[in-house]
Structure formats: C-alpha cells, structure tokens
C-alpha cells in the first residue's frame, strides 16, 4: 500500500489557493463593470455565478486527477511495520562511540548522544568547526565531502585536559540529493589512556630514580662505614642503624606516594560517579590524625554543615584531606590552631575566590580549576594553618612534583614533595578546583572545591 507522499498534499493546497484567487479576481472585475453601468444587475449575477461554478468544477477536477487515491481508505491507523531505520537509529543512539554525520558546508546533520557528550555539543547543531577546531580533522572532513577517501587522522589536545583522539572519516553518498551528493561520517575514538600510560612510565622512572638516589647514596655510605672503621664501635653502629632505618622509611614513603600519584593520573580523565559526604570524611580524617595533633598540641577546629555531599571517590578524597591536614600540622608551630571549614553549595566564583582571610599581605593562586560550567555548584573545604606562610613567588610551583619551598630540607621527617601534586591530580579528576592563599608570617589557607551531585544542586537553586 502506497502512502500519499508528502509533496502531493501541498500541491493541492496551492491549486486551491490559485483557483480561489482567480475566481475572486473575476468576480471583482464583473462587479466593477456593474458599478460603472456597463452591465445590468441580472447579467452581473449570472456572470458571477458562472465564474464560481467553473472554479469549483476546475478545483474538483484538479484535486481528483492529482491525487486519485485520496480518501478514508488510505489511513495511518494501519499498524506501522517495524521500521529498519528506527532500529538503526536506536543502535546508533546506544553506541558508546561518538559518531557524527557532517553535511554540506561542514554542518553537523546528525550526532549520536556519545558524540554530543564527547564534544560538549548542545541540542542546536551548527558547524563542526564550532565544537572541534582540529585542522587535520576539518581538512579530512572537507576532503570526504568532495567524495574522496581519507586516511584516519590522529589529533591531540593539551587543553582543557590532555587527550589524544583518532578520527575516522568516511564519505557517504546521499542518493536523494543531486546537488550536494556527499556527506562525511566522522567516528572518534579516544586513545588518551594508551598514550598516557606510555608517558607515565617514562616520567615515573625518571622521577623515582632521581629521588631514590639520595637516600640510597646515604645508605651505601653508612654501610661502608659500618664495614670499615665503625665495625667495632657499638655506639656508632646503633646511631647509624637508626639513620639507615629513617632513610629506608623515607624511600618507602616516596614509593607509596609515587604509586598513588601514578594511579590517580591514570584515571584523571575518568570522572568519579559515586557520592561522598565531606562532613563525615573530615571527621574520619580528624580521628585518623589525632596522634599527630596531640604530639604537637595543635587545636583543630571544624566548622561544617550537617552534611556536605559531593561527587567523589571516598578513598581519593580522604587522601586529599589527609595530605592537606598533615601539611597544615607539619608546618604549624607547636600549640597553634588549625581550622577546617566546609562551605556550600557555592557558585564557581564564590568557591574559587572567597574573601581573603589573611589580611592585606595575602596572595592567592589557583592551582587547579575545573572547566567552566555555569550550572555547577561546589562544596569548598578550606584548611587554614598558622604556619610561616608561603611567599607569593613560590605559589605557582607548589603543586609541582618534588618541589619544596626553599629552606625545607628533604630530611627523614619531611614530606616527599608529592603531596600537593597528588591533591591536584585528584581534584582535577573530580572536576573540582584547588586554590591556595598565603601571607608570609600569617599562615596559609588551602582550599579544595568539589562539584555537588545534580539533585543537591537543583535543591540549592530552588531555595535561592
């Protein structure tokens, strides 16, 4: 059974309109003649009636010849057959791989949900160049639109997150379009993890060997001394063994930190999906660090709401808190105070740039910031200590690996220089932010802000 195709119906409508227009014009002309006295009253009536009759006849003839099957028997009530096209569409929609169809002029004609998510595409489809500016890809698409075969292209982006993507472009012929017969299909595949794993291994080796060399050298030195002239000196032996133990402990800490850093980096571009209550987490962290707090007689005050849910991996967020609080304890003088405050849900700017609390000398720097997402709301955790503070010029390098603010020796009790790097990478993974405010002599405030779950965000917006 053939359904009336879409282009026949408008045709009838056009005929109907034309017929009515001609009939009306004729009637007006006849009326004018009558008004000027050219025709008698009866002749006018007869002429108008004739025109009306002829037009009706003409209209009926046209409509039946154009569309003879028009009638109640061609109805849409018949059960629709399973449409292979709908099935294909469904498959395309559930495909986890980004697929796009690019039409003439580089316009996006079709994009599956995976592609929309991958490219951050809104509902309105525009030019491909508005969302994907990579020249190699655009060139490949242009070539495909001319109907030529193209090899897959690879591209990498350094911002906002480093990523490496391989793009396959194929040209498709659209049968129904004679003027612009070619379309291009673009399939993207994310190869970031592969490339990243490669580079990570190289980095890890370089860093680790560099940092392990110092304690190893000192170990070797002591062993040599113990074998040599200190062989029979029991007092020296005890002292040396103590130092050697410290050194091995340091190496162990370093290796643990390096491992956790590389683990975090591996899934930096896979955002976490679970939810964690920051308020409860801070409590746990406090319990965990109680011995260190007592050792230096540091008062820890916490100001927090009853619950502060954030999107995040509990273990990783715990690592963030432990690192920051441990740092605060480490760099605080004995008997001073450390304050922790949780605030939120905040807008991006409120979270990133709160009022400076350390006075006029304070400077602030953002060490990690999420891509801008105006709808997002954040919970911020601020940890304030009363330590020596950090000079402005040292702030930018704080989250670098193995960077230590000058004057800090990497002695047995000191950190590995990886803590803040770990924090930064975890925060990056959580699509959150990490800022520091510091004033020499006043202390420092390290802040981390993390996106809240969508449900909480909506509630917060309603209550505003």
């Amino acid at each position: 059974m053939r359904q009336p195709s879409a282009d026949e119906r408008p045709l009838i409508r056009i005929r109907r309109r034309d017929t009515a227009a001609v009939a009306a014009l004729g009637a007006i002309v006849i009326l004018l003649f009558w008004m000027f006295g050219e025709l008698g009253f009866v002749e006018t009536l007869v002429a108008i009636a004739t025109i009306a009759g002829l037009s009706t006849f003409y209209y009926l003839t046209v409509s039946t010849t154009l569309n003879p099957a028009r009638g109640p028997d061609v109805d849409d009530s018949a059960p629709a057959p399973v449409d292979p096209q709908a099935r294909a569409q469904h498959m395309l929609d559930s495909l986890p791989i980004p697929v796009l169809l690019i039409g003439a002029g580089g316009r996006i004609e079709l994009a599956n949900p995976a592609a929309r998510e991958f490219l951050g595409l809104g509902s309105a489809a525009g030019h491909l160049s508005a969302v994907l500016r990579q020249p190699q890809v655009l060139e490949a698409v242009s070539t495909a639109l001319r109907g030529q075969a193209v090899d897959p292209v690879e591209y990498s982006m350094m911002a906002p997150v480093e990523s490496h993507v391989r793009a396959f472009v194929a040209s498709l012929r659209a049968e129904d379009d004679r003027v612009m017969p070619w379309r291009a299909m673009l399939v993207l595949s994310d190869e970031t993890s592969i490339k990243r794993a490669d580079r990570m291994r190289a980095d890890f080796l370089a860093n680790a060997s560099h940092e392990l060399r110092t304690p190893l050298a000192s170990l070797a030195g002591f062993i040599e001394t113990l074998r040599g002239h200190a062989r029979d000196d029991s007092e020296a032996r005890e002292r040396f063994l103590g130092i050697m133990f410290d050194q091995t402990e340091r190496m162990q800490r370093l290796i643990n930190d390096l491992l956790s850093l590389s683990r975090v980096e591996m899934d930096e571009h896979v955002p976490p999906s679970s939810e964690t209550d920051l308020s409860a987490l801070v409590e746990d962290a406090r319990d965990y660090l109680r011995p260190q707090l007592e050792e230096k007689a540091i008062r820890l005050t916490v100001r927090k709401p009853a619950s502060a849910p954030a999107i995040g991996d509990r273990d990783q967020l715990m690592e963030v808190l432990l690192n920051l609080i441990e740092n605060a304890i480490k760099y605080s003088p004995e008997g001073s105070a450390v304050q922790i405050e949780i605030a939120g849900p905040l807008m991006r700017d409120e979270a990133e740039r709160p009022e400076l609390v350390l006075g006029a000398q304070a400077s602030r720097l953002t060490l990690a910031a999420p891509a801008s997402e105006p709808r997002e709301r954040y919970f911020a955790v601020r940890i304030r200590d009363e330590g020596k503070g950090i000079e402005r010029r040292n702030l930018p390098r704080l989250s670098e690996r193995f960077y230590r603010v000058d004057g800090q020796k990497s002695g047995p009790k000191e950190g590995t220089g990886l803590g803040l790097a770990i924090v930064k990478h975890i925060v990056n993974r959580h699509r959150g932010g990490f800022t520091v405010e510091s004033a020499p002599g006043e202390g420092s405030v390290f802040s981390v802000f993390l996106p809240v779950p969508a449900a909480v965000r909506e509630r917060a917006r309603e209550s505003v």
Partner: protein
Amino acid sequence: MALSKTAHIVTAYGEELDQLADELARMGGMVETQLETALAAIVRRDASLVAGVREREKQVNAMQDDVEKRVLRLFALRQPLATDLRMTISALKIASDLERVGDLAKNIAYRAEDLAEYAPLSLLDQVERLGAIVVKQLHEVLDALSSADVEPAIRVWRTDDEVDERYNALVRQMLMSMTEDPGQVEPGVHILFVAKNLERIGDHATNVAEAVHFMVTAGPLEADDAKS
C-alpha cells in the same frame, strides 16, 4: 555561533555570517595546533615538527586574508547592524590577533631547531608548564568565541596575571642559572625568547577575550566588571 542563530530575512546574509564564524573557528583551531606543535618541538626537542608549523603559518595567513575579505564583503553588501556589526568587527580583530599568535608560535618553533643543539635544560619543564597554561587560555577563549559565552572569556582575561607570574618566575630562575653556569647562557637566551613569546600569546588571548566580550555584551571588559 549563537549570533548567526538569529534568523535573517535574507538567508544568504545569515549564511555569510555563519561562514565567517566557521572560518574564524577553523583559523583558531589552526593556530591552536600550531602552538601545541611548537611547544612539543621545544619540550620534546624534536626539530622535525618545525616544518609543519611553518606550513600552517602560511595557511593561517591565507585564512586571515579570507576573513578580511569576507568582512569587507559583508560591510559592502549587507551593512550589518547591532549584533551582526559587532560580530563582524570582532571577527576582524580576532583574526589579526590569531594571526599574531600564529607568528609567535612559528618563532617558538624556530627556537626548537637551535635548542636541539644543546643539552636539555632543567628549566624545560617550567617552559612546558607555562606553555600548558597559555594553550589552555587560548583553548578556552576560542571555546568562548564558538559558544559566544562571556563567562569563560572573563575567566581567561583574569587568568592572564597567572601567566605573567609564571613568566616572571621563569625569567628569574633562568637568569640565576645563567649566572651560575655560563654554558647555559646560549640555550638560556633561546628559552627566554620562547617564554617571552608565550607570554605575548597569553596577551593576545586576552585581546580575543575582550573582543568576544564586546561582541556579546557590547561593552568593554573592565576590571570591576570582571570581579562581579
């Protein structure tokens, strides 16, 4: 681009504005790739990448000419008004800024050839970090241009201080290591130029941010405005 989404009575006009936006986005992508390649050439000490950057430079120049021609044509034939006027004017400004960025990227790439002759410097990782920020700035501002969004543009405008800060820190350290070891002077000078060029690119990114801001809001981007 959001601006061209407003339908015009003359569809060809809307089409032309669309194409202008498209050309500008392509140019942006080209420049971005140039900068990334140039940085890779420096950081990975790979002088073979330089030829690609130079090749793109020619394309970028051609694109700038093309954008200018399109703008001229729009003015002559369509007399754009309001949003369209601001968009065309901004396109002109942005294209010239992007062209400069392309030039600077090319200069950076040339330094890679010279630097490859020296032993790797310990400061390279800082250059990489400065470069990463500048790349991010450029990326965000081009995103802002594509989506006609002011907020990221303001953010870029504000973050320029950070670029300057890192640049200053790098120069200071480079000078220090140059005084300690005269052997570092020659490669050090190249590094200083690379850093300077990166800092300049950061400035051009803020220029683009200002142009985007003007295009969307019709007002200049000012300090008090950025804080709100």
